[in-house]
Structures are given as C-alpha cells and as structure tokens.
C-alpha cells in the first residue's frame, strides 16, 4: 500500500472535511536528498558533477556550471527558453535530469559563439532585430540552429505538404518548427527573417 492508498483509505472512512483536506495540498515527505555523480561535456569542456538526483540539466548548467545564458521560463517544457543542443539535437533542458545525460555533449548559447566571434545565427538575430528583452533569445537561437539542421536532414514537419519530398525553408515551415519557442515580446517575424537569411547563406 503506498501513501496515496493510505490517504484514500483514511479519506474513505473519515468525515468529508478531512477527505477534502487530504486531497488538497498533499504534503509529501520530501525524503533525504540523494546525490549521484555525472560527467558530460559542455561547449567542449569536460565536467564532473556531484548532484542531487533531482537536478535538471537546466539547473546543472545554470546553478552549478554558472552558464546562465540558458534561461528558465516555465520549467515545464512549455516555453523553450531552456533549449540546448545535446549530442546535436535540440531539447528542453528543464525536462531532463542531469544524471540522465551521462557522457553527453551539450552545447549552450555560450558554446555557439562568443561576443567577438558570433555564430551566424547570433549575428543574424542582431542584424534582423530578432529579439526585444532577450529572455527567450538563447533558446530561440539554439532552436533555430537545430531547425535548419533538421530541414537539411529531411525531417518533415506538420506543415510539410509532402512527407517524402525534400523539405523547404519556407516561412510556414520555420514558424511551425519554431513553435516550441515562445516569445512574450513577439519577435517572431524578425526571427523568421534571421533564420531565412542564415539558411540562404548556407545554400
């Protein structure tokens, strides 16, 4: 019998108010923190960390490695601010545990380019005004870089008319593929322009 069953059983034989009480709040004993070690590479450098198992990759990057370029918007996979590349693929770093990424190669916005040597996508975001406050921007740029790779790799999208044909870099494709990155400032159309610019130069 687990905790839920216990509470349910208690609720079933108790008066209504306590039953409602059990359903609310649900204080759970949090338990003793458990630590585990994990090694992965971030932006080319190896790291070995001893972490609480609950630590997400996002928190490991921000709080432990002090790579604060990657942002926490929602912490629930709903906004894309935490997008990083893991082994070349874009993912939400808030919905993966650090310990699940043993041996991975992580690339964050800091690893894409530097102030003196911007990644073409970073430069294009600046040129096309692809942001206002900038909070969503690291996630947008990581996502944008991966989107162009996904199109090149022939991965279809919801708006691809032909599942089997070559994938185009159209505005509709870019908008659909970028839908996992929310921008509260509404910089969307300039982001599409920045991506189109980079895709054009990549040929």
């Amino acid at each position, binding site marked *: 019998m*687990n*905790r*839920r*069953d216990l*509470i*349910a059983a208690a*609720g079933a034989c108790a008066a209504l108010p306590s*039953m*409602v009480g*059990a*359903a*609310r*709040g*649900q204080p*759970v*004993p*949090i*338990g*003793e*923190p*458990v630590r*585990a070690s994990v090694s992965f590479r971030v932006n080319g450098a190896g790291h070995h960390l001893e972490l*609480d*198992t*609950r630590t*997400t990759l996002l928190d490991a990057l921000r709080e432990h490695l002090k790579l604060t370029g990657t942002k926490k918007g929602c*912490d*629930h*996979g709903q906004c*894309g601010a935490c*997008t990083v590349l893991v082994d070349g*693929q*874009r*993912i*939400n770093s808030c*919905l*993966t*545990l650090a*310990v*699940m990424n*043993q041996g991975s190669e992580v690339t964050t916005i800091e690893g894409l380019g530097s102030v003196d040597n911007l990644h073409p996508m970073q430069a294009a975001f600046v040129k096309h005004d692809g942001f206002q406050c900038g909070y969503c921007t690291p996630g947008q740029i990581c*996502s944008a870089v*991966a*989107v162009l790779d*996904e199109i090149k*790799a*022939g*991965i*279809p*999208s*919801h708006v691809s008319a032909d*599942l*089997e044909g070559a994938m185009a870099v159209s505005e509709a494709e870019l*908008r*659909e*593929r*970028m*839908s*996992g*990155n929310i921008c509260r400032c509404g910089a969307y159309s300039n982001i599409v322009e920045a991506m189109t610019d980079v895709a054009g130069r990549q040929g």
Partner: protein
Amino acid sequence: MRAFTYEKAASPAEAATAAARNAEAKFVAGGTNLLDLMKLQIETPTHLIDVNGLGLDTIEATPEGGLRIGAMVRNTALAADARVRRDYAVLSRALLAGASGQLRNRATTAGNLLQRTRCPYFYDTAQPCNKRQPGSGCSALGGFSRQLGVVGTSDSCIATHPSDMAVAMRVLDATVETVKPDASTRSIPLAGLHRLPGSTPHLETALEPGELITAVTLPKPAGGRHIYRKVRDRASYAFALISVAAVIQRDGRGKVALGGVAPKPWRVEAAEAELPRGAKAAAKAMFAGARPTDENAFKLPLVERTLAAVLAEARG
C-alpha cells in the same frame, strides 16, 4: 520534487525486476511527462529506473511485413523514418502534430503511449481529482470541462488520453510488446492497453507492476489514404480538442480512430461499416452512449465535420 534514488538499467528484464522490487519506483524514458509531473508532486516516485541505456531504439522490419518499433525510439526518429512516412503516413502525421520539435527529440514511443491526462484539475493539486487522489472526487464534472472527454468516460472521471501518436497507432492496429519482472513476455493489442476509468480512474493501463514496454509492432501496410487531422485552439504546440486518424481505401471503406474525446484512443470497429455512407452515420455510431457536458458537447459535431473533411480529402 520528492527525493529519489536513481539507477540505469542494464537490460529490459533487469529494469522490470528492479521496478517490481519497489512499489514506488518508476521508469524514466524521455522524462518529458514524468519529470513535469514530479515537479508538481503529482508523481512521487522514490526510485527512478532510467531505461535510456537499454537500446530498444531501432525500427526493424518484421517477418510478417510490418514494423517493430523499439520502445525507446524517439518521436522525431519515428516520424522521420522513411518506411513510416511511406507506408504508415498517418503515424508520421500524428507525431508531427504533437508537442514541439524539442519535446519530440526526447519523447519515446513507450513514454508517449503512457503519458498521463492533461485534465486541468489533475494538474492542480489543490483540487479534488479521483485519478490523482482516489476517492477525492472529480472537479471536472461540473467544472471547466471544455477540453475533456465525451465518450467512454464515467461518473468518476471524464479525462481524455492526450496522445496524438496513440490515435494513429490504434487505427493501424498496433500491438504493444512487454517484458514482466519474471522475464516472461507478452503482446497486448493497443486497443487493450488503456483502460476506461469506470470507478477506478487511477488505474490507467493493462500493464502489471514493473511491466516494461519493449516495442510496438505494426502489421503489414494496409495501403489507402492516410490522414491525421487535429483541431486545436492554436495552430501548433497545443493538445487536440479533437483529432481524426483515418486510413481510407479507394472504395470508401476504411478505419477511423478519434483523439481528444475519450480516456483512450477511440475506435469503434462496428462504426467503420458506416464510412461509405458518410461522416454523419459513422460519427453517430462512434458516439453511441456519449455523455458530453454542456461545455464540451461541441466536440460531437466537430468530429462529424472533421471526419467529413477527412473523407472528402481521401476521395479527392
């Protein structure tokens, strides 16, 4: 989040055995649903068994001419597989209509099937919910129920199963393969994987404690036009209000399953005989016994019209 111990399983059988040892253990695959729910303390495992190292990540041809999809194949990889795009296009389309590029890169075949409902009260731990807290009541009945189920529901729970992929797999007659803690294996038709809520909405699947999904198999291609049409509140990155997965043959016969309307992918084989007669008759048969709320009764005509559009597209 509640503290938990963590292990990486070395083989499917070991993963199942480890899960059976601890009633509070959970498998973690992509983590995109489980970790979300753990942060909210809706799921509170004290032990996580990471199944990412198990392999189970290939798509292979079966001797019967179908496909065997490993449980750990990511949603992106499955949607982009050349054989799936050619022979099971409804599956590619359903996958691509779900979640976002980032989520699909991590979400797995098994995890997608076993993702939990998006009922807003299930997510709100301050509200009674029979699924989350058996016996506490259902806040959705008499609450905001616009997104919730209209058929297959019960007086205890009207939640829907939120997966797009599962609806396509249902129309494709998929089968789920599993391994149990005693190392025995079995096959479960997808139709039998998810349970209807009845008076026990917290029991969601036919899986036994510790039972691990290892693969999903598809029978050999059935031909026909493959269509997945999802209707939602915004054009992308939103769960379905309703969806229609269909495989329609030239002569108008075919198969149809619905998403967003029931606690499981909703398919009524007997209703498919009505398809050549049009959407109205087929939808009526699929919704026999439906019990919509005032807020979600719109789903019935919405399905009928969407099905009509799908049938027209299949003819055109």
